[in-house]
C-alpha cells in the first residue's frame, strides 16, 4: 500500500511540474501578448503534433532520423568495440594509435559535419557516418579502459589455470568491462542523436533536424517545438532501451547500472 503510494508520487509529481509549466507558458503568452512566431502556445504545438503524426507528415522525418541514428549507432559502436579490444590487447597497436586517439578525442566531432556531407552526399549515408563518428569515441575509450581495468588477481588465476588469451578476453575481460562498455553505449546514444541532428542541419531534405531548420525559415515555431519534442522522445527511448539492456545483461552488478544513469 505504501509502496503504491510512493510509486504514484514518482509519477504524479513530475506531471504536476509539467502542468504548472504549461500553465505559466500559456498565461505568459496571453499576458505579455507574445506573437505566435516568437513563442507558440501549447495548444498550437499540440495541433502541430496532431497534424504531423495523425495526418502523417512527420513520420517520414521521424523515421529518417531514427534510421540514421540506429544504423550509425550500430556501426560506430561495433567498430569502436572491436578497435577498443585491439587497443587494450596489443601494446604495439596502443603505442601506434595513442597520440591520435588523444588528439581526435579533444576535437569536436560535429565540426566535421560539412566535410562529411561533401564526402558522403546529402542522403542518409552522410547522417549515418556522422552518427557513427560521434558514437565511436565514448564507446572506444570505455571499452579499452574497461578491459584494461580487469582485476589483476583474476588474470593471475586464469593464467595459473592455463587459460588461452582468447578465453581470457571473451570470458573474463569483456564481462568484467561490461559496466564500462554499457556506460559507453549510454553516452554514445545521447551523442549520436546530436550527431544526427547536426548533420541534418548542415544539409538534408528529411529528418527532424531538417524539419526544425526548414520551419525556422518560415518562423513556424510550433512546428519547431513539435520536432523538438519528437527528438526528446527519440532520445529518451534510446537511453531507456540501453538502460534496460544494461540492467538485464550486467545483472550481477546492480550498483553499476544505477551509476550509469547518474553519469550520463
Amino acid at each position, binding site marked *: 500500500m505504501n509502496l503504491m503510494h510512493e510509486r504514484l508520487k514518482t509519477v504524479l509529481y513530475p506531471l504536476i511540474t509539467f502542468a504548472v509549466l504549461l500553465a505559466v507558458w500559456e498565461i505568459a503568452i496571453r499576458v505579455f501578448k507574445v506573437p505566435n512566431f516568437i513563442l507558440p502556445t501549447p495548444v498550437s504545438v499540440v495541433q502541430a503534433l496532431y497534424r504531423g503524426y495523425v495526418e502523417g507528415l512527420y513520420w517520414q522525418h521521424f523515421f529518417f532520423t531514427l534510421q540514421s541514428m540506429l544504423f550509425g549507432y550500430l556501426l560506430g559502436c561495433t567498430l569502436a568495440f572491436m578497435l577498443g579490444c585491439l587497443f587494450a590487447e596489443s601494446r604495439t597497436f596502443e603505442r601506434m594509435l595513442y597520440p591520435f586517439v588523444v588528439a581526435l578525442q579533444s576535437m569536436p566531432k560535429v565540426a566535421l559535419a560539412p566535410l562529411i556531407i561533401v564526402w558522403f552526399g546529402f542522403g542518409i549515408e552522410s547522417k549515418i557516418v556522422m552518427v557513427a563518428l560521434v558514437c565511436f569515441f565514448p564507446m572506444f575509450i570505455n571499452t579499452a579502459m574497461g578491459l584494461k581495468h580487469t*582485476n589483476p*588477481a*583474476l588474470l*593471475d*588465476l*586464469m*593464467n*595459473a*589455470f*592455463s*587459460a*588461452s588469451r582468447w*578465453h581470457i578476453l571473451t*570470458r*573474463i575481460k569483456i*564481462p568484467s568491462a*561490461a559496466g564500462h562498455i554499457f556506460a559507453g553505449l549510454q553516452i554514445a546514444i545521447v551523442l549520436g542523436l546530436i550527431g544526427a541532428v547536426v548533420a541534418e542541419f548542415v544539409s538534408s531534405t528529411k529528418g527532424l533536424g531538417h524539419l526544425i531548420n526548414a520551419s525556422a525559415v518560415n518562423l513556424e515555431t510550433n512546428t519547431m517545438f513539435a520536432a523538438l519534442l519528437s527528438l526528446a522522445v527519440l532520445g529518451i527511448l534510446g537511453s531507456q532501451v540501453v538502460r534496460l539492456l544494461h540492467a538485464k545483461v*550486467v*545483472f*550481477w*552488478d546492480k550498483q553499476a547500472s544505477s551509476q550509469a544513469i547518474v553519469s550520463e
Partner: protein
Amino acid sequence: MSDILLQADKLAVTYTSTRGPVVALQDLSTRLHQGEFLSVLGPSGCGKSTLLKVVAGLLRPSGGSVTLAGAPITGPRPDVGIVFQQPTLLPWQTVLDNVLLPVRTLGMDLAAGRDKAMQLLKLVGLDKFARHYPNELSGGMQQRVGIARGIIHDPTLLLMDEPFAALDAMTREHMMLELQRIWMATGKSVVFITHSIPEAVFLSDRIAVLSARPGRTIREVEIDLPRPRTLATMADPRFTEICNELRALFTDLVKFD
C-alpha cells in the same frame, strides 16, 4: 613421507621497480613431500606470495631452481591448483560454473567435471548453492567455492595464498577445521602461505619460516600434533609451546630489522 614433490633450491627473485631492483627472495630452499601440508610463515612483505607465484609458474625466478615432480617449473601447469586471498570468483557465473572454470580452461570433459564439481561442492558443504551467484554467498562460503575450484582438476599440488586472511575470526577458525577435513579427505599436497602463527601450527605437518625481505628460509619446524586436530587442540600445551617458539623467532626477526 618419502618422495619429494616440490623442491626449491637457492631460489632468488629480483623485481625491477622504478627505484631500482628489489630483492624479494634470496637463497630460499625448501621441499614438500607427497601428501604433506606445508605452511610458509613469514612477516608481511617477506615475499611469501612471490614464492607462490613462482611455484604456480606465473613468475620466472632470477636465480636457483624449483622442480615439481622432478621437472623444472617453466609455466602454469595443469597439475597445480591455486586459491587466492580474495575468492576472485566470476560474479556473472553460478557457483557451479565457477568451480568448473579450470575444467573449461584445461579442456577437460565437461560432463565428468560437472559430477566432480557437485561432489566437491558437497565436500565443502555448498551443494545446495550450486545454482546461486557468488554475491548471494558470504565471504567464507565464497572462499570455500574457491577451494573447490582449486582442486576440481585433481591437481597433485594445491597452492593457497593466505586464503583466510580476508575472513573474520570466527569464520576463520571454522574454515581451518574445514580445510583440514578437505585435505584429509582428498590427500592433496598443500603449500599454504600465511602470516598467522596459530593457523600455520594448527594446519601444518611442517612450517617453513621465512625472514623479512629478502625472504629466505630461516627455520623449518615439524608439527607433530596428532590428527585430526580440533578446536581443543588449540588449548593443548604443546600447541601453545610451538606457537610461543615461533613467536619468539619473529620477535628476534623484528629486532634484527
